[in-house]
């Protein structure tokens, strides 16, 4: 039974966040609304990654592997932003 209980908390949290993000999208908050949507998406990903995918209890090596994709993606985004924002 214990394999169900802890994940269930995360599950409920995820569904609550889903409701929250839809609410945020409809509230006319302008840019803040977009920021909230993205922030909540980030939290959901964090919950799934860290708790469901067990990064919380993985070795340093595995955490590094998980982080490397995001880190390298930054190069793509930041360097190209340098082009588009200064054109």
């Amino acid at each position, binding site marked *: 039974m214990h394999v169900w209980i802890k994940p269930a908390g*995360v599950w409920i949290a*995820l569904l609550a966040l*889903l409701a929250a993000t839809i609410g945020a999208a409809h509230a006319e908050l302008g840019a803040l609304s977009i920021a909230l949507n993205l922030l909540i998406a980030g939290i959901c990903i964090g919950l*799934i990654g860290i708790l*469901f995918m067990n990064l919380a209890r993985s*070795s340093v090596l*595995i955490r590094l*592997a998980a982080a490397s*994709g995001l880190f*390298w993606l930054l190069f793509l985004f930041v360097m190209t932003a340098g082009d588009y924002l200064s054109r």
Partner: protein
Amino acid sequence: MTDASALIREPWEDFARQKEGVSFGFWIFIASEVMFFGGLFFAFAVDRYLHTQAFRIGLQHTDLTYGTINTALLMSSSFFMTAVVRGAPAGLRRTTVFGLAVCAALGVGFLITKGIEYHDDISKGLIPGAGFPLRPDATQLFFGFYWIMTGVHAIHLFVGICLVLLIETLIVLRRLPLQSPTIEIIGLYWHFVDIIWMILFPILYLLGRWP
């Protein structure tokens, strides 16, 4: 664990290390997948920056109801998958078999919902090309991304469902021991596909939804 020692494969000498190695290797694969989808999100971000207004107009024509249902389905499937990945090494056969079945069912549910949504989109003519109903032209870029992003994600999910059904069969037939690292990495894959949707959902259904 006698069950586990039978799972050792060349060139590994120790099962715990093999398990760690498999999971490390799979995380590198996920990093690679992050770059794959990252490229797509990157292209989306650039075009959204160039045509913010058109992308909002496009987004207001996606169907939030289907999107929300699908998000809830995937979130739930991830929950069941977590129970599988935790239960299997502990030898909880019933939990594993049940969890995998629910996962596959939720995945199929997602694809069916998506199919209905696609059908609606097509009947509204939301396929880029001549006669596209929305203006300005850059809304076509948005729908280009919509089709490609959801399509590539759906292919990933389809592969995930096949893998889940495969190990489900092998487990039921007792051909795959519950301690096998395969179950864990298929779980990782499933969660990853879920995570991709957690990004697709806001950028295709939410950002700038307000009228």
